[in-house]
C-alpha cells in the first residue's frame, strides 16, 4: 500500500467515525409513545347528553351537557315490582333501576337531536365550536330498525330529518350519526341510517365516520 493510499484510508476511517460522534442532543421526528390518556368527564354518564360539534379545523369535537336525570326516581315509580329492576353499573347494588322506566326515558332521545340542531351554546361557541347542520323547523326522529342478518347484537337505527341529507358534508354526517348513536346506544356501536326528504345515506357507525 502506498503512503498516499494509506493516508486516504486513514482519513476515510476517521471520517466514517464522525457521524457516530455527532455530539449533543439531536432533533427528532414526532415519535408515537404509548396510548392516549383517558380522562373522567363530568357530569356523570347518567345525567349527561353527548353532542358532537365541529372544532376550529373541522374536526369532530364532543361536548357533554348536563341533561338532568332522564331516569325517574326509582322510589317514586308506581306499579312496578322490585324484581323488575336492573342494576345500574355506575352505582352498584342499591341503585337498581327499572328496565321499562329506562326505555321510557329514552323516548326523550329526540330532544338530544333537537339540541344538536340548535347548535353550540354560549360556552361551547366561546371554545370555538361550530355546527355544520342547517337550522330549520321540524324535529328529527330516531327509530329502531329491525335487524336482518349480520353479527349478533347488531343494532340499526334510523334518523329521519326534516332537511335534505345527501349533500351534507362529512363533518355534518358525523355530527348526526355519532349524536344519534350515543343518544340511543350506550356502547356507541349501533349503525345509523340518516334519512331525509331527499333519500337515505348508507348505514354507518360513529367510528366509521372518522
Amino acid at each position, binding site marked *: 500500500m502506498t503512503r498516499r493510499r494509506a493516508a486516504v484510508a486513514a482519513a476515510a476511517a476517521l471520517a466514517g*467515525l464522525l457521524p457516530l460522534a455527532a455530539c*449533543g*442532543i439531536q432533533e427528532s421526528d414526532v415519535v408515537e409513545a404509548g396510548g392516549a390518556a*383517558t*380522562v373522567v368527564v363530568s*357530569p356523570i354518564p347518567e345525567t349527561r347528553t353527548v353532542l358532537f360539534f365541529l372544532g376550529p379545523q373541522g374536526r369532530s369535537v*364532543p*361536548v357533554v351537557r348536563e341533561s338532568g336525570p332522564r331516569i325517574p326516581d326509582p322510589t317514586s315509580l308506581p306499579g312496578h315490582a322490585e324484581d323488575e329492576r336492573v342494576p345500574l353499573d355506575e352505582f352498584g347494588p342499591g341503585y337498581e333501576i327499572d328496565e321499562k322506566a329506562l326505555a321510557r326515558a329514552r323516548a326523550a332521545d329526540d330532544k338530544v337531536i333537537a339540541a344538536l340542531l340548535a347548535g353550540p351554546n354560549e360556552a361551547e361557541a*366561546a371554545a370555538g365550536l361550530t355546527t355544520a347542520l342547517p337550522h330549520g323547523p321540524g324535529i328529527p326522529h330516531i327509530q329502531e330498525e329491525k335487524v336482518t342478518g349480520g353479527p349478533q347484537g347488531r343494532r340499526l337505527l334510523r334518523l329521519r330529518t326534516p332537511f335534505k341529507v345527501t349533500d351534507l358534508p362529512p363533518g355534518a354526517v358525523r355530527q348526526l350519526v355519532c349524536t344519534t348513536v350515543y343518544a340511543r346506544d350506550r356502547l*356507541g356501536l349501533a349503525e345509523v341510517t340518516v334519512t331525509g326528504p331527499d333519500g337515505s345515506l348508507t348505514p354507518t357507525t360513529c367510528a366509521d365516520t372518522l
Partner: protein
Amino acid sequence: MKTRVKTRVKTRAEAGAEAGAETRTGPEREAGHAPAAGHGPEPEPAPRRRRRARGPRRRPFGLRTRLVLAFLLVAAVGCGTTAALTYRAARNAILEQTQDTAVSAFREQVENMRTSLPPEAETLKSHVLLIARQGKPRPWRVYAEYGTLRVSSTDRPTSSVITPELRARANASVATPHGSFQRVVKNGTPYLTMAVPALFHAFAKEDAAQHTGLVYYAVLELDEEEANIEAMVAAARDGALPALAVALIPALLAARGVLRPVRELRLAAHNMGRGRLDTRIQAKGSDELSDLARTFNESAAALERSVAELRRAEARARRFASDVSHELRTPLAGMLAVTEVLDEDADSGTLDSDTARAVRLISAETGRLAVLVEDLMEISRFDARAAELHTDEVDAADCVRKTLQNRHWTDPAAVVQDLVPGIRARLDPRRFDVVVANLVGNALRHGGAPVTVRVYEAEDHFVTEVSDRGPGIHPDVLPHVFDRFYKADPARTRSAGSGLGLAITLENVRLHGGTVEAANDPGGGAVFTVRIPL
C-alpha cells in the same frame, strides 16, 4: 543508545583481543618483508562519510515515524470507535429513559384529570398548573388546547417549541389516538415536547374511547440531559487521549525492536565497506531480521575468505617479482664486473672488430639489465608498501638544479631552467631527484629539445613542470603513459629505458601525497606536471 550499538557491533579482531587470544591473521602478516604494513587493509577513512554514518539522522518518514503513526492511527481508530459507539449508546439510553419517564408520567397525570366538555378555562388552568408542578423528572411547562381555547402553566398561552407536526399528530382523527413526543432544538437549547390527547368514554367503560378534542402538551428542557451527555463526551475524550499516549509506548518499543537490528546492520555494512571484513552481527532470536543478520554474517565470512585468498595470491605474485629481482642482482653484479674488463679489451683494439662489437653489445645490454633489475626492485618495494619517505625541508629549485647538474644536463640548448627560488617544501630529496630525472630523461629521450623545467608555487602546492618541443604524446597513449612496461609503439620493442621509469615516478609522487599528469601542450610537445603539497 549510540554507545550501546557500538558495543554490540564488534569486529572479530576486537572480540579476539578481548578473549586474550591473538588470532589476527590479517593480510598485513602476509605482506612478507613489509615492516611498514601497519596501514592495514583500511584505505583512507573519509571523515565525511564517517560522520554521516555515525550521526543519528532524523528522517521525516523513517521507520520509527511510520510505526508510531500506524500505532497511533490504530489506537485513535480503536478509541474513537469505542468512544463513539459507547457515547451513542449511552446518549440514546439517557434520552430514551428521560423520554419514556416523561411521557408515561405525563400521561398518568393527565389521566387523573377530571374535566367538563367544553372545559372551563379556570378549571383547566388549575389542572395544568398541577401537572406542571408534578413534572417528571423535573417540572415542565404544560399547555392544554381545546377548540380555540388555549391554557398554559406559564404566562404565555402557547409554546413556540411545539411544532405543527406534533399538533397534527395529537389531533389526528384516528381510531386509536396515541401519545407522542418530539425533540426540538431551539436557540441551541434542546427541548422534549410531548402531546397527549385526552379521550373519554361517552357513557360506558366498554365503549371505544372518544377523542375529547382536548390535547395536553408538555415542554421539558433537556439541559440536564445535555450536560450529562457533554460530560460523557468529555469523559470519552479524556479517556481517549491517555490511551493514545499509552499507545506511544508499544509503538516506540516496536520501532526500537525493528530499528536496532537495522541500525546494527547499517553500521556493520558500513564497517565492511571500510575494509573491516571481519565485522559480524549478533544474530539473536528467530525473526526475519535475525535471519537477515545471519545471512549478512555468512556473506561477510564468504567475502572475507575470497578477499583473503585474493590478497594472498597478490602477495605471492609480488614476492615472486621481488625474489626474482633479488636473485638476478647477484649474478648481474658479477657480470657487470666482467663486462668492464671486456669493454677495456674492446677499446684497446686487441680484439678483432666483430668480436669487439659483440663484446660492447653484451656490455650495454648487461648495463640495461642491471637498471631494469634495480627498477623492478624499486617497484616491488612500492607494491609491498615498503617504500619509506625520508622528508626534509628543502628548497625545491635547488633540488631540481642539483638533479640536472648530477646528470650533466646543463646545456642551455638542451634543458632550459625556469626555477622560482625560495620555495620551501617537505620532500624526500632522493625520491624527488628520481622524479625529476625520470621526467627530464624521458623528455630528452622521446621528445625534442629544448626541454623546459619549471618550478613554481600554486596555491598550497608547488608545481614542477617538464615540457619538451617534440611531437607530443598520441591521445590513445596518454592514459597509459604511467603504466608499467607500456610501449607507445608495439613494433619498437627496444628502447633505452627500462619501461618502469614513469611508473616509478608516479609511485614516488604519490608517496609525497601529490599528483602527476601527462598532457600535450597546444603549442606542441608533451607536458608532465607534478603537484606536491607544500
